[in-house]
């Protein structure tokens, strides 16, 4: 597919999309942990619409060629931290389930780590 947006414009769209997507996910996460912290003051659905529109535009934009690096110990540490963070968040949100909460959150944490390692070690560009 031939990109519609090229050069600096494509770079800006890509940057804007990535930044707002991360912002949206972060706000969603915060609101899930501290209910109302975000939704009380901001309707993040509006942000979601902007992210979707930018995502569509980003598809039609030119992307720089990605370089594939070999995974090092920092990447594995990051994955481990993500798994622990996922475990803590899921435990917090399912704490009312009692013992089942531990099972769900531990399995979810392990899944995050294993899937991340699978993606990290995938050699396809």
């Amino acid at each position, binding site marked *: 597919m031939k990109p519609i947006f090229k050069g*600096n414009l494509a770079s800006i769209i890509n940057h804007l999309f990535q930044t707002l997507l991360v912002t949206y996910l972060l706000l969603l996460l915060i609101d899930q942990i501290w*209910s109302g912290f975000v939704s009380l003051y901001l309707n993040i659905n509006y942000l979601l619409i902007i992210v979707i529109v930018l995502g569509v535009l980003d598809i039609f934009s030119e992307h720089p060629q990605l370089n594939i690096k070999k995974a090092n110990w920092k990447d594995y540490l990051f994955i481990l931290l993500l798994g622990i963070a996922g475990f803590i968040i899921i435990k917090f949100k399912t704490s009312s389930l009692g013992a089942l909460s531990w099972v769900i959150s531990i399995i979810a944490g392990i899944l995050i780590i294993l899937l991340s390692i699978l993606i990290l070690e995938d050699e396809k560009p």
Partner: protein
Amino acid sequence: METKFTNINVDKKTESEIRKLTKGEFGKIKNHSSEPAYVKFIKIIIIIIPIAILCYLVTAHFFLNQQFNYFYNIGNEKESFLTPVDRVSQPISDSGINFRNITSSLTYFNVPIEDGSKNISISIKFKDNLPESSKLILGAKDSVDWHYQSTVIYSPTIEKLIAKYPYKQNISQNNSLILIKLNTNKPDYSINDILSFPGNVRIATDQNISEKQFTISNYQPSQLTIDTAIRGTHNFYVYIKDTFEVTVEKRDMNWYENEDNLTINLYYLNNSLISSRTIKDDGETDAKPNKTITKTQSGTLNVPGLKEGVYRLELKNNDDVIITRISINQNKLIVKDKVFLASSTVYFNDLTDPSKLYFKSNKPITLKFTTYHDAAANQTIKIDDQRLKIIKAKVDYNQSIQQSSLMHQITSEKNDLLVSGSDFYSFTEDSWFEPFNSAKILLKDDSIYLENNADYVLVNYLPVQDAGDGWKISNTNIQLSGLYITDKKLNMLINIPHLANNATKSKYIPIDWINMTVFKPAKF
């Protein structure tokens, strides 16, 4: 200069060509291949967006006072907000206003409450369809059980009094006190004065005001003898210091059969009996009236070591007895509600002395005079300078008395007269005292009762606003501390007592909307 080109996907030929570049040539290529300044600037702006959002959220949560408004359009077709649904009618449209009728006494709704919120301001638009004895109460759930902290948001009684009498208001964060002065003869007190119970007023209130013990300063007991003959059971209030001693003399009329005993009872004000003494019958238990008899029976009740204060004295008998003398060692004595003056030849030939009664009234009253025998008819009663003719027996004769701080005097020449209408009477001017001139009166939803019994009304109440066509807007402010909030929701109750009463249950209350503002103060 050796430059490392790690992570750059270039073939070896290109790499060797790049290595041959001078520092100046390399700088030019680097500048040309990197992003222009405006792109960098835009990217920095983009990075600032999430930082700004996070800063706004943190500021809003911790550094700014916040208000959250919730508007419940009760007349809305889709949602009524009030539960249970079977206690609320379907939407009704009248004169362009959509509303629903509340058809049962208890209905509920929820309000979202954010953590850290301090108070909530609630306005309700409703149509005034309430009888005077009812009221509109808003409750906020304050425990895990079905218990609500109640606030009266509309009272027809209070609104009626506000429209008629002068009032003062003190609105604070915790409550909105309103003081209505019903008795213009009383001093002009402030709300703070009333809260400290000044001691010479009767207050109807829903506030927790502790009543002061009535005392007469520098009271010195002395002997009081009442020779006014009275008939039947009478209740007195007597101010006692130290030992109390009363001697009562009676004569039996013997108009009816059975024993004619008289019991002297002394009570605390809470009606618990302290001591009692019975004066026996004269020995004649048959119905044999004899007007010539002068023989009396007497008895003395002596109670030592009483705490100084007001007590109730009861002289209980079967109406076949004339009390001819009361002699007590205390000098403040009043009779409650009614006096049957019996110094009349209707009962005994030697009872011919005129009688005098004294009273004060700080409210308008109607005195009632009744005689039961023709011999006592055709007499003129003097009330101060006014004269009232008693023409017939068994007919009530009324005399209006205006409120005044002055002592009134009633004089009857022929007696055999039942006097009622005033709360208290005394037999001498000096023995008069007003033990209940300062008292906490029961706050009833009855404006006439309050006008007759209270000097001031002090309530936690905010007058409603008139919205036209019978619609009213009531406002109230509720502190959230101590309330039971679960899942960030506060359960509220609308209580309309008259809808639980068979006689008034068809007086439904139309509700147009409920508007709520939750106030959340800054944490820092």
